[in-house]
């Protein structure tokens, strides 16, 4: 229809100045993800660790009579009070890489794309503050990653609740669901904060994604190398050093949230001996401020960078 034939019609309805304006930005990102096949492919991959843990739990339970209780058990740590928490820790540990990939594809372009296209001007010409915009972008990443981390964990929790209550699931670990809720939030918060910061300083999603991946893996490699040199590879020493990376910090927070002491077997080939080691949760006094610092750094970087306009430096 040619538009000359139409007359302008005024809008007589109300306009509402919403207080949760950031929510609209966050939901827009989630709606966009909902229609992306690659997002769902990564989500499917990220569910696999819980399937594997569930299968092993089933097999272990079936063979339960043959295996001793305690840290020496056949498949999993059976230490009373952390048996199921350790299952969650294991699944979250395996899921970590998938969550990282999901965070990158969800978050790398969140602000970078707006920078490239100057779309901030469109957003910020609406009744929306810079803070609304930033919180919306942050929540868009956080909710996507948290949802992917939490959904299989909750399903697995229900599975345990239905099948293992008789084995002390609720009695021995009554606060486990709260611990799981907190542990699943750690990767979401750290990834979201750092990615909004990096994305805000980039003009292409590819560059932002590559920068974050570089940061993620380089910090992991450096911390592992320093730990290896400093402790001669002893698994129960230098945990703080070993975890001084993005992935390590996430793991440290999750282990603390779940309250799990990890029992591992270290084989000394030269000495021909086998040693059982206990790795306690890393020092929260180090990793909680570190995680908070990473989050604040990312958000502050984004806040400094986000402007509605290109500023010419004189």
């Amino acid at each position, binding site marked *: *229809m*040619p*538009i*000359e034939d*139409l*007359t*302008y*019609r*005024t*809008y007589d*309805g*109300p*306009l*509402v*100045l*919403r207080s949760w*304006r950031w929510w*609209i*930005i966050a939901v*827009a990102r989630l*709606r*966009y993800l909902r*229609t992306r096949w690659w997002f769902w492919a990564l989500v499917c991959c990220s569910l696999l660790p819980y399937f594997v843990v569930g299968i092993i739990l089933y097999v272990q339970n079936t063979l339960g009579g043959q295996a001793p209780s305690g840290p020496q058990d056949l498949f999993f740590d059976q230490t009373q009070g952390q048996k199921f928490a350790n299952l969650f820790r294991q699944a979250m540990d395996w899921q970590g890489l998938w969550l990282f990939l999901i965070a990158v594809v969800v978050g790398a372009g969140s602000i970078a*794309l*707006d920078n*490239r*296209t*100057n*779309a901030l*001007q*469109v*957003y*910020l*010409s*609406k*009744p*929306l*503050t*810079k803070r609304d915009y930033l919180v919306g972008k942050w929540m868009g990443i956080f909710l996507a990653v948290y949802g992917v981390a939490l959904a299989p964990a909750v399903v697995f929790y229900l599975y345990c609740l239905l099948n293992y209550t008789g084995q002390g699931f609720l009695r021995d670990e009554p606060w486990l669901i709260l611990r799981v809720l907190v542990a699943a939030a750690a990767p979401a918060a750290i990834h979201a904060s750092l990615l909004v910061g990096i994305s805000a300083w980039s003009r292409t999603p590819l560059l932002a994604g590559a920068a974050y991946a570089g940061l993620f893996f380089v910090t992991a490699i450096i911390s592992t190398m320093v730990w290896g040199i400093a402790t001669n590879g002893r698994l129960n020493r230098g945990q703080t050093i070993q975890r001084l990376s993005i992935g390590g910090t996430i793991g440290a927070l999750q282990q603390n949230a779940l309250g799990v002491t990890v029992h591992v077997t270290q084989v000394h080939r030269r000495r021909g001996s086998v040693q059982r080691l206990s790795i306690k949760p890393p020092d929260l006094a180090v990793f909680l401020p570190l995680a908070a610092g990473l989050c604040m750094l990312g958000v502050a970087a984004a806040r400094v960078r986000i402007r*509605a*306009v290109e*500023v*010419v*430096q*004189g």
Partner: protein
Amino acid sequence: MIALERASRWYGQVIGINDVSCQIGPGLTALLGPNGAGKSTLIKLVTGQLRPTAGRVTVLGQAPFANPSVFQRLGCCPEIEQSYDELTGRQFVTLLATLAGLPSRTLSARVAEVIELVGMTPHADRRIGGYSKGMRQRIKIAQGIVHDPQVLILDEPLNGLDPVGRREVAAVLHRFAEEGRTVVVSSHILYEVEQMTSSILLMNRGRLLAQGDVYQIRSLIDKHPHHISIRTPQARALARELLELPFVLSARLDDGDSRLELETREPDRFYDLFPQIVLQRGIRVESFESPDNNLEAVFRYLVEG
């Protein structure tokens, strides 16, 4: 509705706009100037995306910077190219209408209404990534007017439009302005704007050179001769008659004596007398035009002196 009082904005040592004072009322006003003139800075000041370094900017009586209550009554169509490519046109307008504060009960009807107004109904459910430049401009205008703002600011809205598209977009903006709203259209292409409005703000190097009706502005520039081109088979005879007028400075014959090029210092008096002269002498005039009556000339005079 829009007022700037000695407003300046610097980016470090670079001047965006410098000591600009003006008022823009209801109707369609064009903001003109070459690239780097300060148009975008002025738009960003008015749309509250920049704070003036000095002076004052008010929109609808309030300072617009970071002021959501002004944004709610302000529509903005910035010059953006590729964006929101994954969204459909309808999703894009709906998202921004929600941000503008439209409640869910009126949202979809109003979105459909403005999409229809800009002629995008058949394409509303296609991805923006597949849109032509003209379609993108239209959908941007739709998001700008969806909340029925009192003030609408458009940065280069005619860029990339074909002539039909320009005419249609201009018609939409005219209709919007006729409702008593303030519409400001920035452009560096003068002939585009000339067809939309005669009310202009002319900027160069961060300064406001002129404001008002393009013809009034032109009449103020009397130190420059006004050029007039007349096509007639009796060019020589007409030249002889016209050169007797004291305010005609020169006459030149072109195109094998079929076109007469004149210069006058008093165009208004010339236009008053010219019909009488040609009627009395029975001179047939095939065409009559003044290249100095268009914006290009005004701009050239003001900028280049």
